[in-house]
């Protein structure tokens, strides 16, 4: 058995790591996993970079931020597969909920444009939105959504708030709204502090959320253990995508040694049946959180470019070289090499136009055909990674 130390942050999308360990997918591959619960995203990055853990469950844009030189000067980090899509929710304060309901908004938890316009009308002064980390899918979702709904950069303040503190920050009036991964949005609803306005998937149908990140030198020099870990997590993701397994998964990950929360709370995000308001309304969101289906785990280089483009613009860097640097860190080559033997469907290309698939589509694969998940943005935005950058701004 090869022993591996894996870092994770307590969120429901850490499920593939926990399930791979608890249900034996790791042992089948000859791995003994030591799962290490971490307190901060920066801790995960630092411990991985310094070699204190072997791999980490990380926000997809984090290795992009590192590749752009926006973090500490640690060893290079590679993202070898996505672990999940979705799982995020946008929540607003009870005061904003009250104003939006008075204005006739029905909290359908589905129509991003209607919700964004209703929010625009309800907000007085700049809207302060909490996000878990400055390099996160949540930042991208908030910018994309609100800029398309009439918010200008001066109307919006994005603030980092650690997920377990989101509810408190809202209660203390430090923020007006937040976008965070489950179970922390449901946690704030449970405490009577927030109402859920939208799932992340209403803004972007397949927002990649977490990835498996390794040190570049390890990913290269230890192909056997890298491949074994990827296969174990891929199979755990496949198991998790069976709707009948989600309840069991909620119980396993909620144990005191993992998330240490009531399993009912984790179950909401895992089953896509969310209580949106302390008043008791629930909404069903099919595909709220996906782990494996529709090639969800394939780390498209075009997604590295998409995140790099947004991060570069917000931090005053040249998007062209930023996109190149980020794409090199998303290892579609290792994905093909290590998951081909496990039977993963492999797309013919590693780049595509992002946001171009409005409903699940059958496409040619390396062998035969495969289904790609719908990945459209609510406003019809598409991102072409090969398009030349506009010369101004």
């Amino acid at each position, binding site marked *: 058995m090869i022993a591996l130390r894996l870092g994770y942050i307590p969120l429901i999308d850490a499920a593939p790591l926990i399930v791979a360990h608890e249900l034996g997918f790791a042992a089948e591959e000859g791995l003994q996993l030591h799962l290490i619960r971490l307190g901060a995203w920066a801790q995960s990055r630092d411990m991985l970079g310094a070699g204190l853990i072997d791999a980490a469950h990380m926000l997809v844009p984090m290795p992009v931020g590192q590749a752009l030189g926006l973090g500490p000067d640690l060893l290079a980090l590679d993202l070898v597969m996505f672990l999940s899509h979705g799982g995020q929710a946008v929540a607003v304060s009870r005061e904003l909920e009250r104003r939006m309901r008075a204005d006739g908004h029905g909290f359908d938890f589905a129509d991003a444009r209607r919700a964004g316009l209703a929010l625009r009308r309800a907000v007085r002064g700049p809207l302060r939105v909490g996000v878990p980390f400055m390099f996160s899918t949540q930042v991208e979702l908030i910018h994309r959504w609100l800029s398309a709904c009439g918010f200008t950069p001066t109307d919006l303040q994005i603030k980092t*708030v650690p997920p377990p503190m989101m509810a408190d920050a809202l209660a203390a009036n430090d923020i007006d709204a937040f976008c965070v991964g489950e179970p922390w949005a449901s946690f704030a609803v449970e405490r009577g502090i927030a109402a859920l306005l939208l799932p992340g998937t209403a803004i972007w149908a397949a927002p990649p959320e977490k990835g498996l990140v390794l040190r570049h030198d390890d990913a290269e020099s230890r192909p056997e253990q890298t491949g074994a870990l990827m296969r174990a997590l891929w199979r755990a993701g496949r198991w998790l995508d069976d709707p009948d397994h989600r309840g069991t998964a909620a119980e396993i990950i909620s144990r005191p040694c993992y998330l240490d929360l009531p399993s009912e709370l984790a179950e909401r995000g895992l089953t896509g049946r969310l209580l949106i308001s302390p008043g008791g309304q629930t909404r069903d969101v099919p595909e709220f959180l996906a782990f494996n289906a529709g090639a969800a785990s394939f780390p498209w280089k075009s997604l590295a470019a998409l995140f790099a483009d947004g991060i570069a613009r917000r931090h005053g860097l040249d998007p062209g070289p930023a996109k190149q640097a980020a794409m090199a860190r998303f290892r579609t080559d290792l994905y093909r090499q290590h998951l081909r033997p496990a039977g993963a469907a492999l797309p013919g290309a590693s780049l595509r136009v992002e946001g171009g698939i409005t409903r699940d589509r059958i496409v040619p694969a390396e062998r035969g055909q495969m289904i790609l998940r719908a990945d459209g943005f609510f406003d019809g935005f598409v991102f072409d990674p090969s398009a030349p950058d506009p010369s101004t701004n």
Partner: protein
Amino acid sequence: MSKKLLILVVEQDHVRAQSIADGLREAGDHDIRIIAEQTALARRVAEIRPDVVLIDIANPSRDILEELALASGPAERPVAMFVDRSDEGLTRLAIEAGISAYVVDGLRADRLKPVIDAAIVRFHMLQQLRAELAATRAALEERKIVDQAKAVLMKARGIGEDEAYALLRKTAMDQGKRIGEIAQHLITAAGLLGR
């Protein structure tokens, strides 16, 4: 003469915070501030404008400091860079000790190093104390579980306490597992069977 360094220690646990501050005072004549609250951290750091911020590597509030370190303009940037940009070996030692440091732009490495070194010594001490405490707790917890498992066995099989313990120990040895693990499995199984 260069002015005193203003060092901010972010730590909720009062005893830990004092211990770190004591260590830093031994390392030099610095101005040391401690803040415990987490929610208004960004505002407090902007007000205090420290030269160095020291924080436990696992403190969730670190992610707030990360944002400050990358704030858009130098004028609004109270914390400007990561310690590792000045010395790679020092970073690694700091991370291993469980400490994270944010340092204002332009602070010279020879002024910084003694501070980080002192902090590393203190964090190592605190880490050791914490590990010992955790080990004691785990041992107590395991004893409780083993006692419960013994009770289950005694009732189910009508055997004495010594015999129940011997059975647990033998099973653990046969399966190459810790006795606490076997006890936990037994309790879970007994719960499922409604006993």
